[in-house]
């Protein structure tokens, strides 16, 4: 007897296993559509922006307030001791400071000679606060509280403390999602600032959690001059990232088995565990190239 056939006078209920099958098909269709197009993004983002984000902003501000207060209480005793020590240090340091002022003038001259670019100081930036982190534990993505109403667009770069945090991957009216540099599926074209050699920086959840570094690969370093401590910035050939933004510092380098390219690990310049506010650069690489 087919379970779907209606008997006279009985209310029709769909058995749950067919419901499961239908919804599983819907999920598969959603996955295919969202993977190959972005037709679904706008209505979904609008819904999220209206309903969930205001709560998240509110809860995040309350939560961070409470967290800061509780940390303060724990630290008071330490701080009193530190204060006494520090007063002594201040006197010693004032002496050293005057000597360092002289050195600073020399350093500035050398920097100009070396032509270290500070290009990204000239871009317009907007500050944003992180209001929610990835609700699973496998990814490093987070939500910030500025969106299209503040001029944010997809692929804008996100900075904190002068280093690259990631890029915007989705935008709603009053929120945006940022995929970070250390996220497992992130790949950025970078370069070693001293030599100009390009490399690819790939996020890796496992190595970031254990060693605090992410991987890089495809470095062609013919002269063998790249070693630990070199600065890595975003490269000129990336189509999503503005050039010369600091990503991190080389941690170790080794030659690949093909004897042509080198790979290794990079320590990111930004401390992802303690981020609460970020800066979003308001210019997309694509629009700059059009000028």
């Amino acid at each position, binding site marked *: 007897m087919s379970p779907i056939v209606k008997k006279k006078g009985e209310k029709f209920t769909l058995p749950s296993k067919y419901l499961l099958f239908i919804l599983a098909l819907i999920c598969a269709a959603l996955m295919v559509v969202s993977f190959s197009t972005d037709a679904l993004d706008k209505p979904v983002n609008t819904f*999220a922006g209206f309903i969930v984000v205001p709560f998240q902003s509110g809860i995040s501000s309350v939560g961070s307030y409470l967290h800061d207060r509780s940390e303060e209480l724990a630290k008071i005793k330490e701080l009193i001791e530190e204060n006494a020590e520090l007063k002594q240090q201040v006197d010693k340091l004032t002496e050293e400071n005057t000597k360092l002022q002289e050195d600073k003038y020399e350093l500035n001259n050398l920097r100009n000679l070396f032509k270290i670019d500070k290009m990204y100081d000239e871009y317009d930036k907007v500050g944003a606060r992180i209001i*929610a982190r990835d609700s699973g534990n*496998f990814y490093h993505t987070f939500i910030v509280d500025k969106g299209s109403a503040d001029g944010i667009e997809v692929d804008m770069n996100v900075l904190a403390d002068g280093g690259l945090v990631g890029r915007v991957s989705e935008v709603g009216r009053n929120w945006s999602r940022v995929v970070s540099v250390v996220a497992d599926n992130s790949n950025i074209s970078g370069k070693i600032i001293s030599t100009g050699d390009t490399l690819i920086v790939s996020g890796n959840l496992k190595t970031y959690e254990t060693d605090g570094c992410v991987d890089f690969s495809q470095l062609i370093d013919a002269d063998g001059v790249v070693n630990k401590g070199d600065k890595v910035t975003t490269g000129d050939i990336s189509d999503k990232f503005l050039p010369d933004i600091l990503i991190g510092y080389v941690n170790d380098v080794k030659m690949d088995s093909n004897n042509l390219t080198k790979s290794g690990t990079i320590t990111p310049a930004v401390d992802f565990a303690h981020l609460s506010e970020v800066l979003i650069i308001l210019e997309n690489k694509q629009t700059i190239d059009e000028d």
Partner: protein
Amino acid sequence: MKKALLGAAFLLLFFLLQSTVFKYFAISNIGPNLLIIITCAFGFMYSDREGLFMGFFAGLLCDIFFGPILGINALIYMFIGFVNGKFNRLFYSEDFILPGSLFLSSNICYGLVYYILIFLLRGRFQFTYYLMNIILPESIYTLVCAIAFYPLLLICVNALKKSEQRRP
């Protein structure tokens, strides 16, 4: 109708708590998965149909904000809710062993499936690392949080069931 409203209210509350407050209380960067709690609870407290729907919407909410692809979390949570619904026959209110073991095993299953689909297929083969450092800590932390949240859910659902039974 009231059941749907209760479900929606709890879903929103748990999702907000999971992505904001509990990330501040993260232990070595692992936060609990409260959506598993509500999906399993609705599954074994009502039936596979309610578990299915709760799982679908919980997963969808997750996907809208955080998923790499829209629909992957919805699919996984939906199946978890459905399977938990099959345990409704074994469930009674004063029990805590069955709910506890279901929360733990559902969370482990979620972690395994997510790892296989998203990580293993991209060549991240260090399964032991993901198991010991992400999946198992998350499951245990979720179980600890369930000790706090499950009685609340139980009280609300039982109150709702009683008020619906009183009506002839």
